[in-house]
């Protein structure tokens, strides 16, 4: 009961793990490219939570800074990814990934 009442590092880690798992699941299973991107965002958020949690619990600034950069990266990635998705749509007239398999052979 003591574990549940006092919020510690582990709680945050668990949450990040769950988010990470969901993200992976989305990336793996969903056909829609947009949803895959969402999964990626989830993964990034999970990573951010980890970073901030660790920097909170040993008082360094590194985690904070890195999370900042991760967000920036995420923004860039999102923009590019969206553009790519739109191109894919233009080319294949669809956004579900399995039908975009012209790399096969």
């Amino acid at each position, binding site marked *: 009961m003591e574990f549940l009442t006092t919020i510690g590092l*582990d709680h945050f880690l668990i949450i990040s793990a769950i988010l990470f798992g*969901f993200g992976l699941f989305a990336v793996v299973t969903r056909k829609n490219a947009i*949803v895959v991107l*969402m999964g990626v965002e989830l993964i990034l958020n999970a990573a*951010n939570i980890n970073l901030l*949690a660790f920097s909170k*619990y040993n008082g360094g600034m590194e985690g904070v800074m890195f999370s*900042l950069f991760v967000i920036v990266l995420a923004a*860039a990635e999102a*923009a590019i990814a969206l553009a790519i998705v739109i191109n894919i749509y233009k080319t294949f007239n669809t956004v579900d990934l399995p039908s975009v398999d012209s790399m096969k052979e």
Partner: protein
Amino acid sequence: MTSTTYTVIFYLFAAITVFSAAFVVFSRNVIYSAFSLLFTFFGVAALYVFLSADFIAVTQIVVYVGGILVLLLFGVMFTNRIMMTDLKTDVLNIVPGILILVATIGGLGYIFLNRADWFVTSERLQGSVVERIGFETMSRYVLPFEMASILLLLALIGAAFLARFDKPGKSEQ
């Protein structure tokens, strides 16, 4: 505030985050998952606040909610005809997905709870970190900061280039 309220609030936001994320992942409707992603971001931002990274939390809301999520929605708009019944996306290789989901969450949880002993010092981040972020950015992380700005610029240009609207007839190229 007391530790109880603190705990309760934490669990609340944690729940919001996790469930909305689950909804994002499991809902068949893209629009729904997009909107529930909004809640996920908010929840995460709240958790950031708990981790006494208020600036990051704000950034999270501004960037993700104000930027990325809008982008995603635009993407949805572009790629799916609005108000069409079949905005649902079906799933593929569900079994390995489940497997991976379980393995990841289980493995990570097991490690975090039983195996790992983290290097945890006694001091904690206290109060706001905005000022310190400013110092760090201008002193120690100035180079990554500039890199990041350049990266953003490039991303901007790249995105604009990739997504530009081709005139008909040039689309073949």
